[in-house]
């Protein structure tokens, strides 16, 4: 078996980007200028290599693996090396149907982001940072060790911090620090939860237990323990402890997601971040939160999950509705798109709170679909800003006339995000709705829960259409183009941008028409976890 193959997935981008950065940072400015092109090309090639690698994994080129029918808590390409023996820390990586789509998504977005922001300034450091970001993100998804997971979790902050700080807008210092501190604060609380969990294991029972502490950071072993302990009326660690740990872990994940009311770092970060940063931030980084939920609290604490089902549902609903309402009140294009992310992340939470395999699959697919659509949204915003030097909705009207490619891309991305059928986002939304209603009728919830999603379906259309009315359309009057553009040739997007948009659009359609490519394995994962864990305890009632 080629199990080792999951290691270069993480190590290669991280190491190569660090080498490139070290190389560049010691060069004089002039040399650095000359290095932009080779480095950009190198980063593109590296990221494409990663994409080839993960795509090859999907098509089973690197050995017989099955992305379907993986038992719950089994992993493909699983490797584990001792790292810090005394604490039970291991370099453990592996992929399952939960993490693989996210890994693929990351490797897919990396080259696309590089292409979409082909002409970004200070390219010699920009592109390696993107690569580093990618490596850290992959690291989060492949880690099967709590310590490793946390290390990569925090590592993602650093490249993003620099991306915002160096390439960001006017208020970038504030935004970058806020982003860093906000998410860091939440994740240290999560860390405390993880450590508490660590020491609540029975000592010296796990295979990879540390010599000093007698406990292990290994996620698979932990999940196994939890699964065997969650039997009948017995609960892994007991009900109270499950609830406490669940909350502590969820704080970290909800802030990352982000869910209302912990979302305010996101608009700031997005508005100030450069296009590439936003693309990765919205595309993958937010999904870390959702991924973490699935990987840890949901897999470990079924009792708490039932206990907090209502809370999750409320947070999800509030995120969904509040995000959409605030979107409608935005005048800044990028901010609007950022809030739409908040709204969409609400879908994930609702999907989880349905406690239906279908809802979970919808949440997983939402992670994936939003991961393709939102980069396109931000690529469009970036191009808008780049060409029209403003982010205000209405500053530039009649784009369809001046920049037909950009207008088309925008139309496409907006439509995809508002959940137009046959585009990726719709699949998740309709599944979420079906699952939600099914839960409502099955568990006897109030039908008023349906009001939120229904309202948002309309609101989402409203804010997207309204913004399109004032950007793509109109422009027939004398005020357009705006004064600063009069007399100039108003440029359309560049060829690399076009190319990136086309790729993103293609995959949005692909996963809208053939969602099963990714959805089948997600469904399988949810089935496994329901069979293996949730149903197991669901009968006990919670």
């Amino acid at each position, binding site marked *: 078996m080629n199990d080792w193959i999951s290691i270069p997935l993480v190590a290669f981008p991280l190491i190569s980007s660090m080498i490139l950065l070290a190389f560049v940072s010691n060069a004089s400015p002039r040399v650095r200028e000359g290095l932009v092109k080779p480095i950009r090309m190198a980063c593109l090639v590296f990221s494409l290599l990663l994409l080839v690698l993960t795509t090859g994994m999907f098509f089973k080129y690197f050995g017989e693996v099955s992305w379907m029918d993986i038992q719950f808590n089994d992993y493909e390409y699983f490797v584990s090396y001792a790292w810090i023996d005394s604490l039970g820390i291991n370099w453990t990586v592996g992929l399952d149907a939960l993490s693989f789509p996210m890994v693929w998504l990351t490797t897919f977005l990396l080259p696309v982001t590089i292409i979409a922001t082909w002409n970004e300034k200070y390219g010699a450091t920009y592109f390696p940072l993107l690569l580093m970001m990618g490596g850290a993100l992959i690291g989060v998804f492949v880690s099967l060790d709590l310590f490793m997971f946390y290390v990569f979790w925090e590592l993602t902050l650093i490249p993003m911090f620099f991306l915002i700080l160096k390439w960001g807008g006017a208020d970038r210092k504030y935004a970058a620090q806020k982003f860093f501190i906000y998410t860091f604060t939440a994740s240290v609380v999560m860390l405390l939860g993880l450590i508490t969990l660590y020491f609540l294991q029975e000592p010296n029972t796990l295979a990879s237990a540390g010599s000093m502490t007698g406990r292990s950071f290994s996620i698979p072993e932990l999940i196994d323990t939890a699964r065997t302990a969650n039997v009948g009326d017995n609960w892994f660690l007991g009900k109270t402890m499950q609830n406490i740990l669940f909350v502590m872990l969820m704080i970290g994940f909800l802030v990352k997601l982000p869910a209302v009311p912990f979302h305010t770092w996101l608009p700031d970060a997005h508005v100030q971040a450069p296009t590439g940063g936003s693309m990765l931030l919205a595309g993958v980084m937010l999904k870390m939160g959702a991924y973490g939920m699935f990987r840890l609290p949901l897999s470990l604490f079924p009792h708490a999950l039932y206990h907090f089902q209502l809370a999750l549902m409320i947070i999800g609903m509030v995120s969904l509705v509040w995000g959409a309402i605030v979107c*409608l009140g935005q005048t800044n294009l990028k901010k609007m798109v950022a809030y739409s992310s908040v709204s969409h992340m609400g879908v994930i939470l609702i999907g989880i709170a349905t406690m239906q395999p279908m809802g979970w699959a919808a949440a997983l697919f939402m992670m994936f679909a939003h991961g393709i659509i939102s980069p396109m949204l931000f690529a469009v915003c970036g191009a808008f800003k780049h060409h029209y030097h403003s982010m205000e909705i209405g500053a530039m009207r009649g784009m369809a006339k001046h920049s037909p490619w950009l207008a088309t891309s925008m139309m496409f991305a907006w439509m995809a995000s508002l959940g137009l059928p046959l585009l990726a986002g719709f699949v998740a939304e309709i599944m979420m709705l079906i699952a939600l209603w099914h839960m409502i009728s099955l568990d006897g919830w109030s039908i008023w829960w349906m009001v939120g999603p229904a309202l948002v379906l309309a609101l989402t259309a409203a804010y997207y259409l309204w913004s399109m009315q004032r950007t793509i359309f109109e422009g027939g009057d004398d005020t357009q183009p705006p004064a600063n553009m009069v007399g100039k040739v108003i440029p359309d997007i560049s060829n690399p941008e076009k190319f990136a948009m086309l790729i993103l659009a293609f995959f949005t359609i692909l996963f809208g028409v053939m969602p099963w490519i990714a959805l089948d394995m997600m469904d399988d994962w949810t089935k496994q976890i329901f069979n293996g864990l949730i149903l197991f305890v669901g009968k006990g009632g919670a």
Partner: protein
Amino acid sequence: MASSSDVILDSEMVQYAPLIILLPMLAFPVILFLGRVFNKNPFWKNNLKEGGLIALPVMAASLIISLLLIKDHIGGFAGIKDSINLLWVNTTVWDGGVLEPVSLGFGIYIDHVTVMLLFVASFLCLLINIFSVGYMNTDPINDNRNHRFYAEFVLFCSGMLGMVLADSFLWLFIFWEIMGLCSYLLIGFYYERPSAAYAAKKAFLTTRIGDVFLVIGLVMMWDIFGSLDYDVIFSAVEDKEFMAGVSSSTLQWALGMMFIGAVGKSAQFPLHVWLPDAMEGPTPVSALIHAATMVNAGLYLVARMFPFFGAEALSGDLVDLAFIIALIGGITAVMAAAIAFVQNDLKKVLAYSTMSQLAYIFTGLGCAMYLANTLDWHNDSDAHYIVVVAFGAALFHLFNHAMAKGMLFMASGSVIHEVHHAHHHLHHDDHGDGHHDDHHDDDFDAQSMENMGGLASKMPLTATAMLVGSASIMGLPFIGGFWSKEGIIANAWRVAQDDPRFLLPALCVLIGAGMTGFYMSRMWLKTFAGKPNNEVAAHVGPTNTWIKIPLFTLTFVTLSAIILAGMGFTHWAPDSEYGFMSEKGLVEGIAYELDHAFANGDPFFFILTYLAIAIGAVLGPGLAMSLYGGNLAQGEQTKPWMKPVIKLNAWVYARFNFNNSAIAQSSLTRALEQRLYIDYYYDMAMLKIVAAFSNKSAEADSSVIDGTIKNIERGSQSLSSVVRSLTTGSARDYILMVSVGTLAIFFLLWGVA
């Protein structure tokens, strides 16, 4: 959740059915891409008509396949179900203890309703494509962007055909939304006009509100049946054991929700506001989407619900919904007709007419549903016949209306086109040909009937088509819509006899007939009769061949409605018993229809028929004639078949003309001109409530939620200053602090010890 498909497929064509959808769908990117790449290329522009001639063969192919499919269907195969079930979503639900696999796939479903709509859609798509080549490509304003039109056009066709062919409510919805998108894009075709941009948004949003309910209806439906496939649902509905476990009120709610979706799509009260504005789009769009096909989607959806109403297990349970459907129809029919009275914009009149006629169909469907739901039609053959005819009448009206209204729009387009052309010819010759910004480049409005008049002699074919179309819509005896409209009115009254609630819709449709007669006549007369209202109208010339072909074809189809009726179109039934021409021969059928219409044995219906004719074909048009039109200008000649109409009009005009300014200035008229203020209130609600609330929310988000975070930051900064100011710089204070600390520890430990 068993899937029961016991009907055997015996049509070879079904396997090609997906091509009907796929061909136009694939043509969409091709045209769009080529159009962007070869923009302004002379070959592309002149020989390929900027994509028009790519779309044309595609639509023709779709039509041919559709016809073959329809032929097979008519030829006997009764049914249903798909040969291909395209995988889409496979997932799992937890059903109280067990995990059930679920799949939402795509397939083809063909029955009588499908076939009807399939023909209407593919036939009109092709004709309007032909029309577009003559209409769009000759207008300089569209230069170099027609590819966009054709691309969106074919995508729309794909959506429409897909919706018709889809085998589940889910896929119906999916294609429904794609149509919505195309409608949005095409209304906003002249994106640079703020009014078009506004109209496009309004159309999408208004229908979206309906769609939201539709989606809710879908998920409720899914919850009940565990599937959205027609096949599964319809067989489950017939399964009494299964239905015993289903709450009929939940089902009614689900259907009601779906009906709201239909209301939005078919522009019925109260979600009708988008349709008149949608006329901002190019005329072919109005003809195809906003008259002939897309707006029928709502009707199609309601027609699809028939099996629920017809199910024995639900007998009598869905009456309320049937009433609501009929009521919405009735209200809209009268309201739209009333607003149409005062419109001067040619296309707007047609738009309101569309609304009104669709409302008729809704009423018809509602009544048919009522009948199906209350009568024991499965066992009683008389009842069966009544139900079948009622349902058939509604669908037949859909057919007639689609044909006639498509034609009317095309004709009106040709009028507008020529008026516009004449206007340019007259006023803009000095500008040369290069610079035409848009239709609205000055105060001249080519769509206003005030700028027309007496065109019957200038555009004879157009006038004829318009005349036939109007007659069909009005329900003039023997022509097109008459056959179906009479049926709808009759059924409404039939139901009203049974359930007095239905008196309201029944009255509405009866009065509406007269109103239709009035506004349609008014429109024709103002446009074609009388003298040219201005110089421009006097210089309008005949239209081109591309435009003439579809006009001619549709005129023919409309006139031959009696033949279709004779073939059994009015018995278009939810089961195979009354298949196409299965009952009687053609001649026999026509004779039966004539007999049934004019010599009904039941005195009530006999009187009703003539009453309706009197109102719709005499009173309404007569009133219009007395107010508008008149003889043609001196020396103008028209085709012989229009002469009597003109003459009659001139006579009535001369004889019965009266001053209606008192009415014209009444507040009711003003209200009608303002579309009964409904749009105004909607806009206000949007602006004053939704927008204001969202602005406040956005403020709250940054001031309250983010403000909390900022306050924490500010607070800790000021706390930091306080803490640091304790470090005074004087060593004495430091020693003091050490002493205080010492004492604190001292007392703490002392206390403990």
